């Protein structure tokens, strides 16, 4: 078994809101009890609708925000108790690729400058060494050498995402957090970027925390999957068991709602009624109960814990009956 690069134990992130002159104070539980282990060369996909806490989780994983509760260890070092200098080093080993390559690159810097910036900020090497490293990384992600002095607007979306990936890899991170890295790209370009990410993973033994809402992409790239709903994991385990034997009604509906490219599979399925409940006043019990066709009295009274059913973790009272 390869080493665990990132270990999260019961991570929580709560935001106090309101409390103005007339407002009522509240607590948004953006992430509420997430645990996972991410190993070298593996990909964990986080799946869920907007507002389910995926991006807050990414911010915690990249140490941009401390968790309110819970423990995050990177490469065996707990982040909460680390000194400021140690935290800085840990932060370097986790890098991020953002969703929108049009917004995440500085339009006033050349590709070369963008790629050298992480090295310059962290005092790695001298000028010529930094330039050589940047040029080498450009070749790795499939950009031409003569594009070194070009500006981001001269590139297409797919090429810009290559630049963003190259920038994330400049400091030799162990873990890359990719927040919807291909959702802004067209299908043919998406395939190129996914291939590149898989090649780089193999070459550098990277671990990916891959955040996506596209289940077909997740099925292609991930090894493990965590489905989140209202800040909590509802189903978590290896890709194979989740895609073939999903036990949580939310996962099943998510799978059913994803359009298949096989017209013969045109499904007449029950759609999920309604929308996500407000994270400000989450209902007691199971957060999905109000939209769930299987819900019974116990669902609104008692919050289901993540437990082992059918070879993976499921947070549902009726997991055995469904399937």
């Amino acid at each position, binding site marked *: 078994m390869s080493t665990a690069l990132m270990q999260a134990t019961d991570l929580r992130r709560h935001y106090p809101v309101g409390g103005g002159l007339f407002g009522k104070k509240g607590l948004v539980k953006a992430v509420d009890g997430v645990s996972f282990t991410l190993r070298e060369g593996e990909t964990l996909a986080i799946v869920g609708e907007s507002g389910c806490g995926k991006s807050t989780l990414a911010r915690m994983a990249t140490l941009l925000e401390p968790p309110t509760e819970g423990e995050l260890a990177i490469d065996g070092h707990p982040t909460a108790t680390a000194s400021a200098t140690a935290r800085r080093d840990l932060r370097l080993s986790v890098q991020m690729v953002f969703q929108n390559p049009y917004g995440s690159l500085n339009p006033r810097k050349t590709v070369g400058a963008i790629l050298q910036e992480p090295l310059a900020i962290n005092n790695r090497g001298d000028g010529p060494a930094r330039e050589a490293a940047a040029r080498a990384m450009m070749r790795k992600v499939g950009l031409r050498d003569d594009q070194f002095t070009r500006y981001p607007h001269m590139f297409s979306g797919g090429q810009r995402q290559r630049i963003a990936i190259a920038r994330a890899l400049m400091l030799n991170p162990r873990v890359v957090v990719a927040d919807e890295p291909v959702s802004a790209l067209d299908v*043919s370009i998406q*395939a190129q970027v996914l291939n590149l990410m898989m090649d780089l993973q193999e070459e550098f033994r990277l671990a990916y925390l891959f955040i996506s809402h596209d289940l077909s992409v997740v099925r292609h790239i991930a090894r493990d999957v965590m489905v989140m709903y209202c800040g909590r994991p509802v189903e978590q385990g290896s890709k194979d068991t989740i895609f073939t034997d999903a036990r949580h009604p939310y996962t099943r509906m998510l799978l059913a709602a994803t359009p298949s490219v096989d017209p013969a599979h045109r499904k007449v399925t029950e759609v999920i009624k309604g929308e996500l409940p407000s994270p400000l006043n989450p209902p007691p019990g199971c957060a999905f109960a109000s939209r769930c066709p299987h819900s019974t009295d116990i669902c609104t009274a008692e919050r289901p814990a993540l437990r082992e059913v059918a070879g993976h973790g499921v947070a549902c009272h009726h997991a055995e009956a469904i399937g």
Partner: protein
Amino acid sequence: MKLLEIRNLAVEFATSRGRFRAVDGVDLTLDAGEILCVVGESGSGKSVTMLALMGLIAWPGKVSADVMRFDGTDLLGLSPRQRRKLIGRDIAMVFQEPMTSLNPCYPVGWQIAEALRAHAAVPRAKVRDRVVELLDQVGIPAPASRMGAFPHQLSGGMNQRVMIAMAIACTPRLLIADEPTTALDVTIQKQILDLLIGLQRQHGMGLVLITHDMGVVAETAQRVQVMYAGQMVEEQGTDGLFATPRHPYTAALLDALPERAMGRPRLPTIPGMVPGIDDRPDGCLFNPRCRFTFDRCITTPPALASIGDARARCHTPLDGQGRPA
């Protein structure tokens, strides 16, 4: 008679580097009660085609077509006044990005009522009732109280429903939906698509759905048109398109889908990218990226060729095994 008939549509824009054809040689026909999907990557001219149909291409854009008829009415020869009567009543459009398409300064109920008032579709005293009815029809809970809500108070899915309510306010005969679900989550996407198809069946509307998502095409369309760099490259029934794509571009696009690559670690890709304004090749526009390019592809632009039930803009459309015929 066809509900919509467009032949050889071209849209040109004057640029500093000369004229640029954003759309070239697009044919589009639609029967009442039919669902047509127009699919293509960004920059392929899908949206411009529909804007041309709606008469929303402004100067310096120039629209030309051999035929452009809606239910027998020539759309090109309409005066602005006649056009305003038709658009919004008989032909309606749902735009992408509901958050930016709605006016943030007015309540959503008022914006829906505007369409009804402009076309005097119902007596003034009944407008309010009709708005409530429409909001209810598109599945917005507590419609009477949501009438006064502003767009920022509603979620993306709710705003898209408001856009649909606005479009169907005057029970149009042709509804054009431009990427209606692109900004939405899959479960909300499913709800919106089901809603559109339900309304289409209920009113016998013609529905043109523009999308870049092959999954959406497979789930909704009866017929599909594939666009590439401003041209229609293939037209076929949905089942046929997914089983035996005739144009190499369509075939490559389908192969690049992760869902079709089950078990294989690497996805087949299309090298290069869609040509932009100043790098359009001679001959077939797809020839620099095509697997089957030969001499004629580089010199001569292909015409639309019929093969089976399909039409493909290719010198050598693919046979059933994915090889050039």
